[in-house]
């Protein structure tokens, strides 16, 4: 099975490990992620004002390109996923805006693409049962907190990947990998997002809450689907904030790759500062 794949700017650069570990794991469980031939930045924010047609054009261009490659498009980054999926829905449901966007782009894309997250492919196409069978190195004893953040879940009517208040898809995946998922109250709270640019205080507070909440429930490692969450959480730990427990923050595909027997050296654990490697060593996983 081959699925067209939109990497997005961040996964092409600072979050390259997220991208490669996912692709490698996909191969292991039986599908192939094919980069779109042509792609551009999705804009990294879904335009919340409905009259903002310009904000829709960048993602619309991506979708239109993707349609040439097939009927489905997969992504990894929560923000890309959110922007593409919502834009796609607008183009599908809202005739007027579809017309404006297409006129501007001189295109005729109709929103017929099925935009899915990598996790959905794992869950719905492969199945966690099957995933479990493919695991060669079960993550035994790893207490992992799945952190969803905002963009993978909200708004539920547009995204609908899982229950917006009590999602479990990542926990279910972690279980399949042999890890022990840890539920924590702040798993659907915001990390501070783009305020990283101009409001460190807010980011540190919000990200700090998330880490503390996970640690309080016993999480030894936090798993995310979003490079910005990863950046904010890790950044908060690295800053002089003494209260924040030092919990490694990794992409879910890094743990996935590990469990599926990929060489740890290629999974980018060194990028996460020493803590991750130390933790995994302690657990006897690397």
């Amino acid at each position, binding site marked *: 099975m081959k699925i067209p794949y939109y990497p997005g700017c961040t996964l092409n650069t600072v979050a390259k490990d997220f991208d490669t570990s996912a692709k490698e794991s996909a191969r292991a469980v039986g599908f192939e992620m094919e980069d779109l031939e042509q792609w551009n930045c999705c804009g990294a924010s879904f335009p919340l004002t409905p009259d903002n047609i310009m904000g829709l054009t960048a993602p619309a261009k991506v979708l239109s390109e993707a349609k040439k490659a097939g009927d489905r498009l997969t992504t990894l980054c929560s923000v890309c996923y959110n922007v593409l999926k919502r834009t796609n829905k607008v183009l599908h449901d809202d005739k007027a805006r579809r017309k404006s966007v297409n006129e501007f782009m001189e295109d005729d894309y109709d929103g017929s693409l099925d935009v899915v997250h990598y996790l959905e492919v794992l869950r719905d196409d492969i199945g966690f049962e099957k995933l479990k069978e493919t695991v060669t190195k079960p993550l035994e004893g790893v207490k992992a907190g799945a952190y969803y953040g905002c963009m993978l879940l909200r708004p539920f009517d547009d995204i609908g990947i899982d229950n*917006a*208040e*009590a999602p479990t898809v990542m926990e279910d995946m972690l279980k399949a990998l042999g890890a022990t998922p840890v539920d924590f*109250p702040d798993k659907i709270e915001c990390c501070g997002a783009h305020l990283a640019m101009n409001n460190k205080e807010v980011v540190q507070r919000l990200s700090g809450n998330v880490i503390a*909440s996970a640690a*309080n429930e016993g999480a030894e490692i936090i798993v995310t689907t979003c490079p910005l969450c990863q950046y904010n959480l890790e950044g908060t730990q690295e800053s002089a904030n003494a209260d924040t427990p030092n919990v490694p923050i990794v992409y879910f595909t890094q743990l996935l790759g590990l469990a599926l027997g990929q060489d740890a050296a290629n999974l980018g654990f060194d990028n996460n500062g020493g803590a991750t490697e130390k933790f995994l060593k302690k657990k006897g996983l690397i």
Partner: protein
Amino acid sequence: MPRIGVFVCQCGNNIEATVDTQKVADETKKLPGVVHTESYKFMCSSPGQDSFKKAIKDNKLDGVVVSACSPHMHEKTFRRAAEAAGLNQFQCEITNVREQCSWVHHDETRKIGTDKTMDLTRMTIQRLKKNRDLTKITIPVTKRALVIGGGIAGIQAALDIADGGQEVVIVEKEPSIGGNMARLSETFPTMDCSQCILTPKMVEAELHDKISLYTYSEVEKVDGYIGNFSVTIKKKAKFVDESTCTGCGECWEKCPFKADSEFELGLSKRKVIYTPFPQAVPNIPVIDKTRCPKILKDKCGLCAKVCGPQSIDFTQEDQLVTEEFGAIVVATGYELMPNKDFGEYGYGKITDVISGMQFERLASASGPTGGAIRRPSDNTEPKNVVFIQCAGSRDEKRGVSYCSKICCMYTAKHTMLYRHKVHDGQAYVFYMDIRSGGKRYEEFVRGAIEHDGAMYLRGRVSRVYEKDGKVIIQGADTLSGSQVEIEADMVVLATALVSRPGADTVAQTLGIGYDKYKFYNEYHPKLKPVETVTAGIFLAGTCVGPMDIPESVSQGSATASKVLALFSSDKMAREPITAEVNKQTCNACWDCVTSCPYVAIEKEEIKDRKGNVVNMLAHVNDGLCQGCGVCVCACRSKAIDLNGYTDEQVYAAIATF
């Protein structure tokens, strides 16, 4: 040739001032078929009516027109007089020349009024010529009422009907009557104990010689119409012989198996053979056949061994009985929206987030904790309790858009009960508005705040989660504009009151309407609040919408007065304004059937002499037809007509316009 009489009333000067009634009388006299006309000062006065009757007899009239005030005023008077004079009362027609002519045209020359009166009178005369004799329809009335649902509303209805001397059957689907009120601890606004005021009524219903209780039973099928319902009731197998069981309790003492108690909302267990609560009426147990190993795989049977009178019968089966009733009261009540519907409040996953009804059980002296407030998770006394109002109510996105009406009041009550039982405890209430309309209700809420120290916070709670054995509430106080976080020991949701599952099926069985929330529709929300569009079926209590006990009881009594009025004579007479099908021209398209708002048209089988069905035709059930005439216009074959307003009559009137 018809012999018609026309009587033009002057109404003192009311009509005469703008209508030359004598001229009208003189002119109409010239019309074909009119043999007598007169103008009179006060037609409705005794001498007026006497002269009216005399004229009918003397002139051998076969039809009369009275051109006078609105038919809404005196149609009955003149029809009765016409009947007294030997005429079929439907051969008497009124022309409205006062309200709709003399009073609204102030022309002093009297030309306008006179012309219009002539026109209108002529139209009535032409219409009258097409009138047929009609006889009032009489329907026999079975003086026996069915009450569906034995909550407080149903019990009240049954007691009042029975006290009025008529027989009542209560069909209750649970093993005991009492409904939700049986679960309550103390009740606002007077704070009397629910059991103390309900139990005597339950016992009275049981002992009343006019009331029969069919508990553990449900209505399967309803046929017929007002005065003549035929109802099939399913009596579910109790596996206990009601006639011999003494309610001694040996069986449920000894039964070794347990299940969650429905009555206690999962807060405690009951046995497999059980009565839902100690004061149950009747105090006769039932066996939960889905859990009894004797029934499932022929093991145990302990209860039968210990039962002195040998009342246990494992072979009992559900029984169907069909009985006749003249009227039906529907009082099937409500339930609370399930806790699991509240995502942001923990989906029913957090043990210490409970519903208002569960709190009632905790506070009830006969409840699982004997009236002590204990949190379910670890049975400790909660010191900080947060009450969240409007949980699921006024939330069109995830719940229901309406206000549940009683939860502001019961939340205030809960904070009081809590403070009375946990003196050092603090109650917090998140509310959007406090709705305490009712006699002494606002004072009650003020008491909760001022006297019992409840902390009211104006704002909705955004999220509830568990942390370190506490329940964390994240909300807002919009009055100060701040976010509020409370570490509570227990959370009580003032959960939306919703219709019972299956309420729509019950409505369909009965042929009554319901709204999108499956609450039953009143005939008219203000003026016929306990009637339904189906004559003979009445509504009481919370199956109509949220209401408290006083209102439920009032409605129960109101339905009883309706039922007793209906039962006050052996036969009901009603206007013969009903539809009738012409069997020659009906071509069985059933357009009429689908258009009738009262489901009054049936598909009738026409059989030949050998009894084979040769044809199907529409047939109007006089008992159900309300005479709206919708079917007449729906029928493309013009095969159906409305007595009293036939096409012929209407066309005759139009033709002379």
